[in-house]
């Protein structure tokens, strides 16, 4: 268990918040530096664990959450560096910091079941976590869109007006994150299905493999979120939805995903519990 990467993520969160309030470029650079340092340490620890176990550490709920945090930090840094916008860090970095603490405090998983040795499993988890990270970014874009929208609509430009990018830019970034996340989620679910067929042949007696169906809460919620994001893409491209409605949808979609990542993963016995 390492406290270094949560500490660096927390430092990044504090610095992003300070930068949001004070808007001093030096604070912004320090915030990016702290988050980047957190990612470097996290990457090193994941690499060490992979070498130790001869496989990516993706078995337990804590592993999945840790992987999600790592990917979210990387995706966010990519968005920040390509767009030049740091204001969203004040919303994402605290989230990353809190989830990294939960991930670090999670119970260590037990021995790795043999059925997880397939590369399909690694691709399945990686794609799904990458999708979740994209949806988290989309949700933050959505929430900030709504905050700025309210200020502009109320004809009282203030805190968010002075700090956030334009509504058009937030809407565009939201749309891109949703499309990217949806593609990854689709790929991850299809790969999971192929892996399930393979696992059924190899270990048909494993009760967890047998329980992998639409009645399983984790799978049910994942499919539900897939449908929700599919609707959002259809609504945006075919029904002409954009702006506030899609912003809300992406926020709701991510709440559904969080339910899957936290209470369902930690509290509800599911077919995906390999600890």
């Amino acid at each position, binding site marked *: 268990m390492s406290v270094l990467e949560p500490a660096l993520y927390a430092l990044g969160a504090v610095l992003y918040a300070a930068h949001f309030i004070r808007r001093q470029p030096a604070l912004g650079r320090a915030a990016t530096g702290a988050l980047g340092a957190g990612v470097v340490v996290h990457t090193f620890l994941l690499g060490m664990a992979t070498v130790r176990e001869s496989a990516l550490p993706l078995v337990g709920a804590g592993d999945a959450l840790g992987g999600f945090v790592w990917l979210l930090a990387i995706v966010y840094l990519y968005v920040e560096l390509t767009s030049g916008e740091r204001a969203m860090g004040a919303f994402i970095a605290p989230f990353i910091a809190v989830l990294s603490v939960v991930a670090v405090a999670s119970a260590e998983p037990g021995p790795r079941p043999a059925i997880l040795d397939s590369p399909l499993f690694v691709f399945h988890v990686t794609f799904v976590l990458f999708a979740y990270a994209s949806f988290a970014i989309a949700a933050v874009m959505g929430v900030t869109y709504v905050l700025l929208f309210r200020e502009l609509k109320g004809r009282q430009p203030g805190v968010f007006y002075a700090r956030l990018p*334009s509504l058009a830019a937030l809407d565009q970034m939201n749309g891109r994150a949703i499309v990217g996340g949806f593609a990854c989620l689709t790929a991850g679910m299809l790969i999971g299905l192929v892996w399930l067929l393979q696992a059924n042949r190899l270990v048909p007696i494993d009760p967890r493999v047998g329980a992998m169906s639409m009645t399983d809460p984790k799978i049910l919620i994942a499919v539900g979120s897939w449908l929700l994001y599919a609707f959002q893409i259809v609504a945006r491209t075919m029904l002409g939805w954009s702006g506030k409605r899609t912003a809300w949808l992406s926020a709701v979609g991510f709440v559904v995903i969080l339910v899957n990542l936290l209470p369902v993963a930690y509290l509800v016995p599911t077919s995906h519990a390999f600890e």
Partner: protein
Amino acid sequence: MRLLVLGVSHHTAPIDLRERLAFATPDLAEAVSTLARDPALGEVVLLSTCNRTELYATCHSLEDGHEAMAGFLTSARAVPADDLRAHIYTRSEGDAARHLFRVAAGLDSLVVGEPQILGQVKQAYASAADQHATGALLNRLFHTAFTAGKRVRSETELAEGAVSVSYAALGLARKIVGDLRHASMLVVGAGEMAELTARHFAAQQPKRITVCSRTATHAEALAADVGGTVVPWGDLDAALAQADVVVTATGARTPILTRKRVQAALRHRRGRPLFIIDIALPRDVDPLVAGDDDVFLYNIDDLQSVINESLARRSSETTHAETIVNQEVERFMAWARSRTAMPTVVALRQRFEAIRRAELDRLQPKIAGLPPEARARVDEITRLIIEKLLITPTEQLKALPDEALQHSYADALSHLFALGDRNDDEDDDEPGPSPGGKGPREFVGS
């Protein structure tokens, strides 16, 4: 040498006097050269904008400097001395530095926080430096002013927000539709206000500007002016459906853009937001239009309240900005004070070095037999000892808080170490624009 500023600004002089005293950019060089030739003045910088004309100079006597600078303005601009005397202000030493730093930071501007003034101060300095009219003191003063201006810009919100209707509208448009180069603009009406706002938007090179007015000739004139196209009044609905930003400024007595009309346009927009700026009185847009989700409607009062908020925010930031200015004044004055101590420091170093050389010469017979590396080592060690002995008293002397105390210490050191005639050479490590600039001069801080 003393530091002096003399000038007029919008605070002290009416516009007709400011106009007469203004110097066009091409005339600055000659004016600075003339001033620099005056024996009463040392280094010189002339700052001239539409709101101020100020002379910054070093001089041996404040009275003589004042007379030379005022005389220059009256003769160069043919302004009666009495007129000038009634409206000029002067600041000297630390107050002069504070004045320049406040000017560079936009604290002394007509619209507090306006950013253009820093560029104008830089231009004035560059113009004087090109004429070799600046030296160590004004180089340092102006570079510190640039730092103060930049710090105020980056560390405060003094320059934030729009302070005119057109800029407020432009800022809002950018926040709603993003990059205006990809946005279409519709101007409804072709009056003066519409023209002013359209020109501001045209400068952002929007994808398309469309002008729609009941009077075709007015619309054509405005469209030609802003590089737009004209649509007939009857095609207003179609133009509305295509626009991202709409400016309405007609003289109509009843609303032109009713809610029904705008809703019909929204149906073709597939959720794209529409920003409507209604600067007409009576209003051109039905206020109920604001109830539609994808419409952002701002009338002239809304824009004014945005401006008021910007002004209030700027006002609340002035304390923070003044603190930064004070810090930079303190930094500059500390440097200026340290210059007073320089002759004593130089003399002290020369005295110590002379003692070191004399001792090495005296010991020459004993160290002559040493290998060359060992002799070089002895030389280096003795030099380092002197450096270390002098570093603390040098720093302490430079850091003394006032001129009188510095002179007392200097006298004491002269007496204790028999410094005799002080060396008048000074270090010249200040930022400088050119080797031909005026040399460093003693500055007596206040």
